[in-house]
């Protein structure tokens, strides 16, 4: 008999704290997706929700220069060290099927992007927008800190452009962003990506696909018991 034969009326909830400007969050997203895909027909239904985590609130919306410039000149990290770490993450991203372009990347504050993600959640398009913003930031060199560009990217995934602009201009999702950040602090989440599987298990970091697959399988089994 299939181990989940008597399951699963409710989808497994996967809550993810991440930031658009977090290279390992995009990689972790791919690993989670790969882990789910590896379960094939046995994969339980899941319900994924992204939560805001602003890695560097002091980042300016408009920074003139590359990612190397930002980390080396603005943050004072050794330039050679910065290049090594960007090369490393670019290589790992490539193995996950992601074509990171740190030369084109436009470093920016992600607060407005998070507000738009909450608007998209309200519209049932949060997953689509999360993927679109990560791709825009890491592979296309798009500026995800400016309202005009965010509205354009939102429209690409089906958000109403005028409503998206109103949501950003009014700041009506700012409190929701801060509530996510406060929840992370309450949980002791210091870094991202961070995954909570069905409220039962926490997983920190861009873990391999099999870690996600095992955790989801375990939760499905527990829920079926």
């Amino acid at each position: 008999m299939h181990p989940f034969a008597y399951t699963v009326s409710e989808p497994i909830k996967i809550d993810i704290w991440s930031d658009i400007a977090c290279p390992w969050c995009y990689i972790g997203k791919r690993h989670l997706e790969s882990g789910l895909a590896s379960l094939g027909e046995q994969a339980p239904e899941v319900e994924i929700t992204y939560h805001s985590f602003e890695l560097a609130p002091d980042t300016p919306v408009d920074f003139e220069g590359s990612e190397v410039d930002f980390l080396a000149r603005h943050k004072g990290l050794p330039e050679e060290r910065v290049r090594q770490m960007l090369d490393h993450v670019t290589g790992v991203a490539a193995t996950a099927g992601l074509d990171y372009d740190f030369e084109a990347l436009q470093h920016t504050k992600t607060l407005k992007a998070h507000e738009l993600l909450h608007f998209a959640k309200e519209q049932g398009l949060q997953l689509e927008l999360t993927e679109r913003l990560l791709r825009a930031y890491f592979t296309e060199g798009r500026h995800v800190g400016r309202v005009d560009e965010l509205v354009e990217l939102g429209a690409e995934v089906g958000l109403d452009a005028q409503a998206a602009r109103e949501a950003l201009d009014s700041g009506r999702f700012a409190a929701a962003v801060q509530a996510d950040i406060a929840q992370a602090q309450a949980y002791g989440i210091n870094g991202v990506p961070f995954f909570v599987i069905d409220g039962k298990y926490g997983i920190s970091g861009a873990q391999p696909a099999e870690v996600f697959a095992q955790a989801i399988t375990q939760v499905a089994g527990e829920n079926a018991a």
Partner: protein
Amino acid sequence: MSDTVEREPDAAAAAPFAMIAGDPQAMVCEGDVCFVPGAIAE
């Protein structure tokens, strides 16, 4: 900023979930740096 950092495990004891250790080499990002918890900042 120090290169070598000792980090407390993510998720406080008050969190309503148990931590899955997974791969200890999995990267996380804090602020402007990403690192293996307990190892060298990247």
